[in-house]
């Protein structure tokens, strides 16, 4: 979808948020965007009206670029709900928990595939999330099952104020991982047959793995 919003208009929205926040009119946290307007404008050119957006607590730009009216979003922010912008009409889901929407994004993509839909899901997250276990699980599952979903990592190098790469280590994670393949000789549990035995009361029982 071609956005009509300019970089300046996006910044103006966040400036409005800054102003009401500074005026002491909000009773909730704000997570503002800035500096990524052109990146998002380019990405949203490929996003269709019927697509889903799953994103984070920093979502004003995503909502506006998806078509949420400024006035609707201003009211939502004024109602102290900036941290979880949700809009069913424009198919926007967010979470205030790091990585919180990745798996629901995956489920929506699975749902689209099961229904044979043509739309897709766009899942936005930060760089710390992109190092998390959930991120690896969902991206792997999506790739291997050919789901209609695109993951967008918004990398500002920080998680809150923690430098992501410093905490994870600046080297690749590869060398400290050993992988080997084997074929098991026993099942996951038990020994592969049902086992008869007498319980404490002397009753004949059978172990059936439950």
């Amino acid at each position, binding site marked *: 979808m071609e956005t009509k919003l300019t970089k300046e208009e996006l910044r103006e929205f966040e400036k409005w948020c800054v102003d009401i926040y500074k005026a002491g009119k909000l009773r909730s946290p704000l997570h503002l965007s800035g500096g990524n307007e052109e990146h998002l404008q380019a990405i949203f050119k490929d996003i269709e009206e019927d697509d*889903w957006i799953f994103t984070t607590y920093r979502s004003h730009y995503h909502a506006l670029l998806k078509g949420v009216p400024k006035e609707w979003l201003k009211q939502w922010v004024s109602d102290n*709900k900036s941290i*979880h912008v*949700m*809009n*069913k009409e424009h198919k926007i*889901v967010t*979470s205030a*928990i790091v990585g*919180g*929407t*990745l*798996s*629901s*994004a*995956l*489920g*929506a*993509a*699975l*749902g*689209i595939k*099961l*229904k044979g839909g043509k739309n897709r899901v766009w899942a936005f997250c930060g760089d710390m999330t992109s190092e998390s276990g*959930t991120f690896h*699980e*969902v991206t792997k*599952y999506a790739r291997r099952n050919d789901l209609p979903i695109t993951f967008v990592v918004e990398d500002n190098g920080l998680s809150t104020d923690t430098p992501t790469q410093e905490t994870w280590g600046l080297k690749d994670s590869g060398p400290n991982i050993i992988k080997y393949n084997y074929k098991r000789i026993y099942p*996951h*549990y038990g020994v592969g047959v*049902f086992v008869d*035995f007498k*319980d404490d009361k002397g009753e004949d*029982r*059978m*172990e*059936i*793995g*439950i």
Partner: protein
Amino acid sequence: MGTYKEELIKAMDILAAHPKTIFIGQNVIYGGASMFWTIANVPKEKRIELPVFEEVQAGMSLGLSLEGFIPVSIFPRMDFMLLAMNQIVNHIDKMDEMSDGQFKPVIIMRTAIGSTEPLMPGPQHCQDHTEALKLMCKNINVVRLENADQIVPEFTKALQADKPTILVDIPDMYNKELENEFKESRRKSLENL
């Protein structure tokens, strides 16, 4: 009124007959948990076997519900469901509130208190956190299925609800029945040799 196991099968048949339901989780296509035997009549095309990633499974259930499905999300033991608490407590339970009622996910989560007979599986496989779940969840209806006569009405209610439900079954109520069925099946196959 049937036995506990018969009522579970009846309830699963009712869920399976609904056009929007989809059964997901571990042991929905492949065996390994007592619950597996209670979904025997659910058509294969309505089942998706997932990897063991409980948190992602719970989140996927939410995503599927947003796409109009009613997921029947199966966690074979409550001990394992603990790994999904972020999605269950922070997301599924809060979706209605966070969206001002725009999203009302209908999700049926099924779990069990691991059986302690005929084998005692140890402290990580038989925990009952039903009461803790009730304390943590503001919107999800949490139900422990104490008796056979509760089963069909509670699953039917979950299917018709406009909110998520967690139903906790008790395999100790029906594993003896399964055990006898397996014994009988084996006896018959031995007779046919």
